[in-house]
């Protein structure tokens, strides 16, 4: 799957900038926390990948993920969690909640790029 529009939900400006440089060929939509992420998602229903942090103010990554997976419109959108939280229980929780993958920060850029390239096609593709 080659996503065209990617939603980045992270409270770090540095990470947003990093993804901007890394994912130059994709259209990026930015949100600084889960609540803003949901708003952006409804504004851009054609988003086909979400890169999600966990620790954020005003709705954390897990809460955001649960909302997304509950929503009929976005349940198929793959979510990659990219977080400093490295405990096994966090990884399990994220994957059980429907994340396609869980990457620990600090990450290697090529790790994310390869993961994106290998995402299975969405039902709508």
């Amino acid at each position: 799957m080659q996503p065209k529009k990617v939603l980045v939900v992270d409270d770090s400006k540095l990470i947003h900038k990093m993804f901007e440089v890394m994912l130059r060929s994709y259209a990026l939509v930015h949100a600084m926390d889960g609540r803003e992420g949901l708003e952006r998602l409804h504004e851009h229903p054609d988003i086909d990948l979400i890169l999600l942090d966990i620790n954020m103010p005003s709705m954390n990554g897990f809460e955001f993920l649960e909302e997304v997976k509950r929503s009929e419109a976005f349940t198929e959108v793959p979510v990659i969690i990219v977080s400093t939280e490295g405990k096994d229980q966090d990884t399990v929780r994220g994957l059980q909640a429907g994340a396609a993958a869980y990457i620990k920060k600090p990450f290697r850029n090529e790790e994310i790029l390869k993961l994106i390239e290998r995402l299975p096609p969405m039902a709508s593709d």
Partner: protein
Amino acid sequence: MKELVAELQKVIDKAAKLIREMQARSPEEASNTEQGAAEVGGDIDQLKSRLAEAETDLQETTDRMVEVEHQRGRLMSLYVATCELHETLDLDEVKRTVGEIAIELLGADSFALLLRQGETDGYEVAVSRRTVGVADGLFVGPDYTGGDPMVDEALVDGVLRTTTEEGSHALAVVPLAIKGTILGALVILKLLDHKASLTSEDRDLLDLLAAHAASALFAAQLFVATDRKLRTLEDLVEVVRGG
């Protein structure tokens, strides 16, 4: 590689043709064909050897590509970190960026950014994360008054330290100096649990921080001081005009 495979296919076809001919011919003719088959066998061995060489070359090229990709990613991180540090003259933004680099790119779980307080010899804990209960509370703030030998030495000699010293709680100390003047230091106290240690690549990032964070902080501090003076002058002008 494709050419080799095509050549190999041709030899296989030739061998198959020879086998068919052997089956169809008389014993005398078969003897000639056997000779031809032996030649084909030699060709196959040669091609196998060339194929093995090509496979080795391919593996080396793949390894080099992976390394190049990795280096590209590393340089990208350094580029983004530099851009972010110099993007603003807002002192709080610069401090926040230093903190984000420490967490997001270095994998620091506990750290403190110490900044010199004006023209004094004292240092404030400008930004910190998870310093309570760590390092005997030396970096909880609001001030750092000394006590960690590795940090104290770095604040004097301006030398980057990445190896823990006896009696110190720091994993790394990055002095922030500009033209020989030490503005402060970034003290890394603990890494995230899933990050075993600082790598040689992290060292590049620490070097970058030592150089660029210092100049970004200096520029922002200068801007704050100049802005303050400007406002004071403007207020004075207003007073004079009003009077």
